[in-house]
């Protein structure tokens, strides 16, 4: 078992937020880049941090939450170490992206509305058009784009990560 986080990592991350807020001069009109920078630190936007940001910018937490949930790029729930995004834009959809999603979710035991595995290793989500329709159907693992996928290749990608994590 690995520990939940490094001993001093949380503290450092939080200090980083101070720096981000100062960098944008605590200007509420810069909320989007501020959230962007915060998400880079935490990989998602934790509630408490959003409240802190709202306090520092002197705007209401409801407004910050609204902006954080408006852009699909922002996540308000913790995300897994590896993020698998499946394009479900029109082109990918007609080229059968859904069966790929289904096998991956099944392999990772994701049911119902759950998109992140209990061990916080994977998050699987669908996104609207990634602009790579020529390669449809497209799967993005972390930052790497994989085109012309099939359920079988999709599964392979996942297995490869699992194997690497276990080694």
């Amino acid at each position, binding site marked *: 078992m690995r520990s939940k986080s*490094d001993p001093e990592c*949380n503290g450092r991350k939080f200090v980083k937020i101070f720096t981000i807020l100062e960098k944008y001069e605590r200007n509420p009109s810069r909320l989007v880049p501020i959230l962007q920078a915060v998400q880079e630190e935490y990989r998602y936007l934790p509630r408490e941090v959003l*409240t802190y940001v709202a306090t520092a910018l002197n705007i*209401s937490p409801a407004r910050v939450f*609204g902006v954080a949930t408006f852009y699909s790029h922002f996540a308000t729930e913790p995300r897994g170490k590896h993020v698998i995004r499946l394009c479900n834009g029109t082109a990918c959809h007609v080229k059968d992206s859904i069966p790929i999603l289904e096998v991956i979710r099944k392999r990772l035991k994701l049911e119902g509305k759950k998109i992140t595995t209990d061990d916080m290793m994977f998050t699987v989500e669908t996104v609207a058009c990634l602009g790579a329709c020529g390669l449809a159907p497209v799967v993005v693992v972390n930052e790497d784009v994989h085109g012309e996928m099939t359920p079988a290749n999709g599964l392979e990608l996942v297995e490869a990560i699992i194997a690497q994590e276990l080694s």
Partner: protein
Amino acid sequence: MSAIAAPPTLSIDGIAVPINGERNLLELIRKTDIDLPTFCYHSDLSVYGACRLCIVDIAGRGIQGACSTAPEPGLVVRTQTEEIREIRKISVELLLANHERECTTCSKSASCQLQDVARRLGINKVRFKAVHEPAEVDRSSPSVTRDPNKCVLCGDCVRFCSEIQGIGAIDFAHRGHDVAVLPAFGNGLGEGECINCGQCAAVCPTGALTPRQEIDEVWKALVDPTKTVVAQIAPAVRIALGELFGMQPGESTRGQMVAALKRLGFKYVYDTAFAADLTVIEESNEFLARKSKAGKLPLFTSCCPAWVKFAEQYFPELLPNLSTCKSPQQMLGALVKELLPQELGVAKKNLVMVSIMPCTAKKFEAKRPEFAHEGVAEVDHVLTTQELARMIEEAGLRFMKLQPESFDMPMGFKTGAGVIFGNSGGVSEAVLRYASEKVTGRKLTNPDIHAVRGEDGLRIVEVPVGDITLKLGIVHGLKNARTLAEKARHGNCDLDIIEVMACPGGCIGGAGQPVSRNPDIRKLRTRGLYDVDKNMELHKSQENHFVTECYQRHLGEIGGRNAHRLLHTHYQNRRRIAGESIELGDGDSAEKLCVNVCTGTTCFLKGSQHILHELLDQVEQEQLHEKVSIHASFCFEQCSHGPTVSVDGKNVPSCTPEAAKNAILQAISEKVP
């Protein structure tokens, strides 16, 4: 002298209409007596332009939203074309498709604008299928019920809360299909910053936001033979209740209201204005004492519970400036529960106090823990004007035909000063009527003090009282209150008294009042209250002999011990949002010294970020990870002594980085056996 040039005109449905500075086409069109349907337009709020019902056809420009088009000379505007009719119908059908159409059980049914528009546009079928999954109804707030399934996303509530109240407790969240109006993090409305003013429900065109109902509980008490049920009625109710029974806005209902309550089974009916007279006396004396002894000024009034919660959340350092007087509702409740059990020989727990208020925040106030003593609340239930009307209808009473009855004595007796408490400027005027006689020792011959009357949301007035001039601030809408409170916080406010009411125009515009689309409603209701005052014999609280007698028999001295016990209260710092602390060390901290740095609004402004930063550095430099875990927490509700840091459960008020470090080192050394 040349003749005044005729104003430029534009054409609306073939008629030339003069332009006189209207802000948008919609205003101009409505002036020509065409009531274009809208959901998202509200003259007090910014223009949103989302509902698309106000569309018109402008020659050369095509279909445009009237609310977001400026009137220009020469425009040729049509409000009805085949295309416009079809677009409007589709817009409404799309809204209806996703709307939970349980109209018969909706408390907005009688005043729902969605129903109204659907009927007006002759919508007889809905061609679209719902795409929304039903969402849970939010009943966490004592004041407002939120049913997301009925929201049409017009945003009126969002804009009222942020533009007029300066809060922003609710906002749009999510996107596409999932867009919804939500409190922060999708929490319940009762868990956050909402100050319970209910104005979001007042502007909401549908049943998505409605005042919380307490009718069932009241019926239950009324039919229970072991209970004695007593009512009090706030001033603003009497000039608005009649609107629901065909009377003119502002017309006083006089005795029918009392008669109706008696017929419903209330044993005694008292007047909250009696307690308002008491408030005037207590609060004026509190003010004069502060003024003469260089006490905390400006004195903020405390009769509006929405404002009180607002102050507790955002201006903890000003809490000592708030009058310690309870609101009239609570004063009357406290007196009833103190005096009646003995007089009537009923047990305290069997005496039920129901107040009829124009206000939803009073529902919250009645539930504040400090207003219950040994499990007995001062006020058990709060009904709004709307709810009372509903009960009258349910009982089938023919309101207008009821034989008028009068309030019960002694607590049904009031002066005009107590009555004008219901509108903005009224509390100030009532206090001045008292203070000026007290200061000068001379009789005030004309009680009307016109300087404090008016409609503006923020008024500063100077009133001579004897040899001195008192400077008053009078505000309605909490954004205006914030403006003055900010000044007071920074010590650059030379006002003596600041009267605050959260609702537009004061209590007469409370969210519990009948829903009205009459643009003159506030003016009419305000005039109604001043007329009631005019028609009364007594206009000054000090002339209320039942109040005088109440002091002699029960309360003792003004501002004395007993008066304080029954009529005064205290305030608490309040966090804006429920939330856990942010863990800044590693996960398991059970064995460690727990250090919490408050990062709530006040402590943040007082520099808690700096402290946090230094402490994290200290932990790093001195390798204290094993011994200390640091957390950032939201508001310890100790704001007036901020910044606050707690070390092992002990608060270090007015903390500095050094003080915090020392406290940590000391606590560590104590922990070592």
